């Protein structure tokens, strides 16, 4: 058992989650605070550009903390990080395509069906 323990603490095992519990509690607390902030955005009724900006910023900070610390991405080799985190960029391109498509659809609906109130 003592042999196992000493083996677990060698530098080669650094990527396999030998971090102090304090780090997880800190991130947990940060996620709580960020969630409270994003809830306050709705509660206080922030509108317009500020609302979108705040929602996106808090969302990305939360997502970053979860992926980097809770999912240990910060301690993985770059080959895995890039293999997993780059492909979702395709979703952004898809989003851009569908924004243009949705604009076209609403324009057509308003022009030909005139269902606007």
């Amino acid at each position, binding site marked *: 058992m003592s042999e196992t323990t000493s083996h677990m603490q060698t530098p080669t095992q650094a990527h396999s989650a030998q971090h102090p519990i304090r780090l997880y509690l800190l991130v947990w607390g940060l996620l709580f605070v960020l969630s409270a902030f994003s809830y306050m955005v709705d509660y206080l009724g922030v509108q317009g550009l500020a609302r979108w900006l705040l929602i996106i910023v808090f969302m990305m900070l939360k997502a970053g903390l979860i992926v980097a610390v809770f999912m240990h991405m910060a301690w993985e080799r770059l080959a895995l990080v890039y293999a997993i985190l780059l492909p979702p960029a395709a979703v952004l391109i898809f989003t851009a395509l569908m924004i243009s498509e949705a604009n076209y*659809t609403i324009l057509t609906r308003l022009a030909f069906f005139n269902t606007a109130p």
Partner: protein
Amino acid sequence: MTQSLGNSDLGPTGLRGVAADFSSDQRAFKTASWGKAMMWIFLLSDTFVFGCFLIAYMTARMSTPVAWPNPSEVFALHIGGQDVPLILIAIMTFVLISSSGTMAMAVNFGYRRERGRTAALMLATALLGATFVGMQAFEWTKLISEGVLPWENPWGAPQFGSTFFMITGFHGTHVTIGVIFLLIVARKVWRGDFDVARRGFFTSRKGQYESVEIMGLYWHFVDLVWVFIFAFFYLW
């Protein structure tokens, strides 16, 4: 040990390391076991699934000339004589984040081979997950009784119902599956399967405490998806 590679065997770091890892023959992911790499690749595919749902929601909401129901009012609860906006959703968010916290600590204690604490924290995670699903069931019941159906609702664009049930339903299914797997892995930890390298029921492979971390990856992903759903569907 699957991770017996010394630091000297890992080669260069940074971009040069990415090129070296991918062109190295054999395994590209030098420090991730096949199990962890496969879970990550599954989660990547799941990212696309949820990405497509959210994009479909965006397209529906952007392209309808009918006003979209205001989620702040739709998901408000009547507490103490006044409407509190989104309060149930906020509580669900905190419950899910807490379950992520207990899961992260379970992984940590797993690698320290403290199986009692690991199993207890995994059970706590499962309990919080089940609480989340229960609250979601309450939310669905409330909305259905108010007349929200996949093809109509009292407040505006009919697409609201279909996207809501589709996105939260798929996420709730993920949470439910996660709870079941948490219970299975927690039982293995409790029994000491990973200490004695007992063979598993499906693959007959010897278990390791890394299974807890792989289980954790899935669970954190469920939390991660909720971050995006909370931002785009409930807050936007």
